[in-house]
């Protein structure tokens, strides 16, 4: 029997894919029944708490845990940063305690005495000049002859822009329940890497990866920060072992979560553009900098200019700044939102300087992008949906009154494809179907998409598919990062279910008196192609299997996507804001997102992804920033009160337009996790500049910064 011809059904033949399906884990989540790692309660479970370092830079001289150990109810204490350890950021874990209750564990933590030698620290990077020896220049990228091009330019536009360090702020903090009993570990983490995290933990504990059993039904947010077992996973396992194998629950408190469990690098840049009178850019020069904590980091020189990569003459420099702050982790579309913001602000400032409509300037420069026609079409669509023609005005000409309205543009790109993924499909003789993958659903709708692909292939309804994910005993699937999950699991599920169906058709063929290749699975039946009269119900067909279920695998090989998935999408967002120039308060009226995304399996959850990404951009543009104090070295707003996130009344109206066309569809499946989260901050920042007539150089666009820009001073 030959291998099935793996491909997606033709657009007009799809019955499940492309329809709007409610997420299948919705009922579990809305009813509180669904269990997240932090919801796991096991018999005899202990609670752990961490002692963290209040200093940004310090050497541990001694750690005295005696009093903690002596407290009644404490079962184990582990030192995580022993004498001699140099702490590089505040919030670093120094010791951990397991106890009968969380209250006792916290009491015990307070009894641990640590003597620190406090060292000098630096936690700021906004001012590159002040960084001195903490600067790590990454080397210059030089293309063409920028000096000559600037000489020939009709106009030179210069600007400085900045976007601070943001936090993932996953609502479910990092952590796990873990039970190390005998030589095996039962592990319930909060992770976006079900198949991989067990091996990570095992390596840190020097035990076989095979001995770690990972389970996770649901995860309360990851956004790129939850791939590894982390020090808290390792110490929780050790505490469990030291407590006779009792399960231990250790989840970070909110302050610690924000301080150490994930941030994204800042991005600052001075940018010069040389252009012709018509807005065509001929020269780019930038010096960018940023921090990702102790590693320097930030936007790589290769990431600027963003999207407009083929500007012919460029000089690009980037400097990472080392700070004593919690290290960065991957954050939805790493560095893209920063790069988009820096680039698109510079382009709109150029347009303003030339007194040109930015639509025209972006359009003219799309020639420098990988997909000019896609961007042009998207920009036209976004302009239409945002009523650009009616609402846009030249920068600063918003008319009288204290509330000024403005529009602005942001542009994005992202890769895609699919991670390695294996899927196992079991068709039982009673007709039930299991689809198993060691994957995870971050809220993106992965479970539902798997069910839809399986249902499509098998001619069943979504409800007839039992999707089993969240266990590392299922066939391995990649961690969810880089918008590669949907590509990976869709292909492995499609292949696995096609393979299984093939076996079923072979088993059924004799009964229907035709060869297997003349059969199809449609509407809950196995039938002779195009002939419902010659058919068996799904259940009757499966009964032909006797007692032996069909078990078939399917794999997505990232190196050979077989035309089922693709990469490289574009997106454009246009923001519409109102700014009260007396108070500097910015309100979002509308954010329009136009996004191409290949073949869409579930438009309902796909749209949710884009809505969510837009809202994250609104948070980043208007509210979020990590505020570090140089005197204390502390992250002052490591809470949810002053680390501000938009509420339900802070987001205006959001219009999502998924670019669903036969041409895009033919490219196959492309993930949507990252692309739509990229351009929103740029669009909002540009809209504010358009509204008030001056550039607010740094986001978030808080009243202090807006008023400072209006008054011509730096905030």
């Amino acid at each position: 029997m030959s291998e099935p011809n793996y491909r997606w059904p033709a657009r007009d033949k799809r019955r499940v894919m492309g329809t709007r399906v409610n997420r299948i884990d919705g009922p579990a989540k809305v009813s509180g029944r669904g269990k997240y790692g932090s919801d796991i309660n096991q018999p005899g479970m202990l609670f752990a708490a961490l002692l963290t370092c209040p200093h940004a830079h310090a050497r541990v001289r001694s750690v005295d845990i005696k009093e903690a150990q002596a407290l009644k109810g404490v079962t184990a204490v582990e030192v995580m940063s022993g004498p001699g350890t140099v702490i590089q950021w505040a919030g670093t874990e120094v010791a951990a305690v397991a106890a009968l209750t969380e209250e006792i564990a916290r009491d015990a933590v307070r009894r641990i005495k640590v003597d620190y030698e406090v060292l000098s620290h630096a936690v700021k990077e906004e001012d590159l000049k002040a960084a001195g020896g903490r600067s790590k220049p990454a080397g210059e990228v030089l293309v063409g002859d920028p000096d000559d091009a600037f000489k020939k330019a009709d106009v030179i536009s210069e600007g400085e822009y900045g976007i601070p360090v943001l936090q993932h702020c996953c609502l479910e903090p990092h952590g796990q329940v873990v039970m190390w009993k005998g030589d095996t570990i039962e592990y319930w983490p909060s992770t976006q890497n079900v198949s991989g995290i067990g091996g990570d933990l095992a390596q840190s504990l020097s035990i076989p990866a095979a001995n770690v059993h990972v389970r996770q039904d649901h995860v309360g947010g990851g956004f790129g920060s939850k791939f590894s077992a982390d020090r808290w996973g390792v110490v929780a396992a050790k505490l469990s072992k030291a407590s006779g194998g009792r399960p231990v629950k250790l989840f970070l408190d909110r302050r610690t979560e924000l301080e150490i469990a994930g941030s994204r690098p800042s991005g600052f840049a001075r940018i010069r553009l040389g252009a012709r009178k018509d807005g065509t850019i001929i020269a780019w020069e930038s010096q960018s900098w940023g921090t990702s904590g102790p590693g320097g980091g930030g936007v790589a020189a290769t990431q600027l200019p963003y999207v407009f990569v083929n500007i012919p003459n460029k000089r690009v420099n980037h400097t990472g700044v080392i700070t004593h702050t919690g290290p960065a982790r991957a954050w939805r579309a790493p560095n893209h939102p920063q790069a988009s913001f820096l680039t698109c602000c510079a382009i709109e400032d150029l347009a303003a300087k030339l007194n040109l409509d930015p639509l025209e300037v972006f359009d003219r420069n799309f020639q420098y992008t990988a997909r000019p026609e896609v961007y042009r079409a998207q920009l036209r669509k976004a302009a239409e949906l945002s009523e650009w023609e009616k609402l846009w005005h030249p920068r600063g000409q918003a008319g009288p009154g204290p509330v000024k309205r403005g529009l602005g543009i942001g542009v994005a790109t992202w890769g895609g494809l699919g991670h390695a993924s294996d899927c196992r499909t079991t068709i039982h003789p009673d007709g039930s179907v299991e689809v198993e993958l060691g994957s995870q659903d971050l809220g993106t709708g992965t479970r539902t998409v798997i069910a839809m692909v399986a249902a499509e292939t098998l001619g069943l309804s979504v409800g007839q598919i039992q999707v089993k994910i969240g266990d590392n005993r299922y066939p391995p699937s990649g961690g969810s990062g880089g918008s590669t999950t949907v590509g990976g699991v869709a292909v492995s599920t499609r292949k696995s279910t096609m393979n299984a169906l093939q076996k079923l058709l072979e088993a059924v063929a004799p009964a229907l008196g035709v060869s297997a290749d003349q059969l199809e699975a449609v509407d809950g039946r196995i039938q002779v192609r195009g002939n419902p009269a010659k058919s068996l119900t799904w259940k009757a067909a499966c009964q032909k299997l006797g007692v032996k279920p069909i078990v078939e695998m399917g794999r997505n090989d990232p190196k050979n996507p077989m035309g089922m998935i693709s990469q490289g999408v574009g997106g454009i967002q246009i923001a519409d804001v109102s700014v009260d120039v007396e108070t500097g308060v910015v309100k979002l009226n509308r954010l329009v997102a136009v996004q191409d995304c290949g073949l869409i399996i579930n438009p309902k959850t796909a749209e949710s992804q884009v809505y969510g990404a837009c809202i994250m951009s609104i948070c980043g543009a208007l509210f979020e920033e990590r505020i570090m104090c140089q005197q204390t070295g502390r992250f002052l707003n490591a809470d949810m009160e002053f680390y501000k996130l938009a509420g339900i009344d802070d987001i205006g109206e959001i219009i999502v337009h998924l670019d669903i066309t036969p041409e895009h569809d033919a490219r196959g499946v492309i993930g949507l996790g990252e692309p739509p989260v990229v351009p929103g901050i740029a669009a909002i920042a540009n809209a504010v500049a358009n509204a008030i007539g001056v550039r607010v150089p740094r986001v978030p666009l808080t009243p202090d910064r807006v008023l400072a820009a209006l008054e011509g001073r730096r905030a």
Partner: protein
Amino acid sequence: MKRSKDPESQAQPKGLSRRGFIRGVGLSGGAVGLLHPEGEAAPAPAVLGPGPVPITLLVNGKPHKLEVEPRVTLLDALRDRLDLTGAKRVCDRGTCGACTVILGGKAVYACSVLAIDAQGKPIQTVEGINAGGRLHPVASAFVNQDALQCGFCTPGFVMAAKAFLDRNPNPTLEQVRKGLGGNLCRCGTYVGIRQAVLEAAKQMRGGARNV
């Protein structure tokens, strides 16, 4: 500084009053006697703890007896002691709303209520309004409108929305936007939530007419 004239106060943690001291003795001597008047004096207020204290919580229509220290929050009691984990611990500082439950008919942050202080009033959790495998109209509208992603803020939002609709059965979009200002979402599900609350309002009004 003015100090208590009572000599017994010397034997205590600084400044605690005599009655508190007596209560403390009472507790170690048998706890239950605490609620009874002591001696000749007017009924003395009971001082409980700091050790575990028996309490009864009326959760989803059922009384639950448990022993907790006075410092244990309602949220931790529900999650850790009663395995009702629908209410989530996110900020744990009365800001994000993920722990929202309905106490005595009103939405509250369970992280900011002491369990011992939640006695005597009905406590409704997300599990309670969706009991028996039947989704409450609010919860069901959240599913229909895809008003959730990771889902960690969702139970809190569902409870806040239910409490909101109990008081505003026919809200405008504007009222919905203003009425759910005590909950935060990180994935960005607000667009769906707005629609879900409007849909649920319609459903619940329809349901009421049918009864």
